[in-house]
């Protein structure tokens, strides 16, 4: 029941985000260099995916444990949701899992769109590599999403977006100065160390990203449990 309700509340946003992401990805694809390397492909798919994570994340985890509405403060129906015999943990989990599922869907749509639109790609990167890249990218995007959820648990929607962007940009800036071993560098996963180039799964980086996501989500859950209305 909560899933159905969550779907009702997020499906329009999902549609919107999917459309935006697909369009950007397709436009960003440069037809010629597709043959020369996978760089542009990676870039074209990464940025929109991150965008998706940003937009779908949080979006009122604090104020809308059950839903997503534009609200300055608490939405009235929130009281009803909280009066249901459901733990906050469950409300939180449903929301987060729904968000992750939606991100996965967006990713798949994006890659499918590019695949369809740019025939040149079909030749160069091997399908298995493509698949590995998608999975690795998903881990990265999950980390971003978790960051968004973490901020959304105590910040209002607008601030949450800015906080996430700031943190991500800051992290990138720091990591580009402080070199990490290639296997750990999450960023490289999406560019140089991408499976599209290395033809292997960056297991360690993925583990780090997922571990980070888990931690952020747990902290967010703890915060949400202690919220007062």
């Amino acid at each position, binding site marked *: *029941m909560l899933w159905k309700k969550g779907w009702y509340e997020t499906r329009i946003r999902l549609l919107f985000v999917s459309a935006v992401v697909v369009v950007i990805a397709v436009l960003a694809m440069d037809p010629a260099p597709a043959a020369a390397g996978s760089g542009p492909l990676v870039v074209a798919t990464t940025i929109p995916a991150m965008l998706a994570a940003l937009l779908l994340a949080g979006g009122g985890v604090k104020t809308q444990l059950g839903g997503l509405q534009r609200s300055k403060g608490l939405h*009235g*129906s929130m*009281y*009803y949701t909280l009066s249901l*015999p*459901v733990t906050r943990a469950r409300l939180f989990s449903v929301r987060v899992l729904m968000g992750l599922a939606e991100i996965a869907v967006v990713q798949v749509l994006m890659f499918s769109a590019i695949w369809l639109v740019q025939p040149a790609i079909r030749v160069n990167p091997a399908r298995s590599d493509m698949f590995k890249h998608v999975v690795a990218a998903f881990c990265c995007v999950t980390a971003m999403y978790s960051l968004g959820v973490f901020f959304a648990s105590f910040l209002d929607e607008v601030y949450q977006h800015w906080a996430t962007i700031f943190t991500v940009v800051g992290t990138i800036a720091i990591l580009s100065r402080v070199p990490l071993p290639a296997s750990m560098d999450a960023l490289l996963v999406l560019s140089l160390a991408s499976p599209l180039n290395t033809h292997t799964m960056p297991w360690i980086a993925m583990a780090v990203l997922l571990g980070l996501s888990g931690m952020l989500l747990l902290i967010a859950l703890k915060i949400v449990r202690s919220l*007062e*209305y």
Partner: protein
Amino acid sequence: MSECAIEAVELRKSFKGHEALCGLNLNVPRGSVFGFLGRNGAGKTTTIRILMGLAKADRGEARIFGIAPGDDNSGALLRRRIGFVPEDKELYPYMTVEQVIGFSRPFFPHWRDDLESRYLNAFDLPPKKKIPDLSKGMRSKLMLLLAIARGSELLVLDEPTDGLDPVMAEELLRELIRLSASDGTTIFFSSHQLAEVEQIADRITIINQGRSIVSGELEDLKRQYQRIKVVFADGIPAAIPWAQGADRIRKEGRMVSILSGQNSEEIMAQARALPGTSVDTYPVTLKELFLELMRAD
């Protein structure tokens, strides 16, 4: 099986430096119809939020059926047995009446289908209408239906007749009486409509500035409190040592008006013993009692 539906002991709660609750005590027996009265900002909504697990008290304890509502897990289980109508009677704007009922039903193992259809009819709620298209009165009724059909042992209602016209309000009160009489449902409600409280409540608590100032069975309180008017033919003497319980003494011209909370007989005898007096007693309505207590506190 605890005899107490709701129990609060020395609840304290502060927001941003403002002390909303300063040691509130509450005792709501099972099966009672309990009126929770107070001015705006006295702490009624804060108390209800703590009882529903939306907020946590800084100090003191709150228990419903002996269980603390603040813990995430036990609170969720507890809410299976409680029907809640909050002050903001809002629901999901993208659902229709029957959709929100259908959404709510699976959460409650004791859902009463008979009550659901009964109140759909009694309240005249159009099943296919979208919630934002309902009038305020309709929404109040829908929220009440959702609270009642849960098959709850306890109803916590924050201003249940707010926005209802007199006919609808009476209907609602009648349904509450019916629930209390037939199912023994405990009803805990806050209201500004003192006349309604006087009608259906058997116990009340009046809360002011975060504390309860009067508590007990309504009929007893009405018997206990008397307004005694003493007229002095030759003017009011300077100082009169009234017996214990003579509160809220007001003087006007040659008349002294006393609201006595106890010892009414003693005070009356005292008054009659004074020279040149005529003594009359009047019963006190809940409204008078409330206003008088607010004035003096």
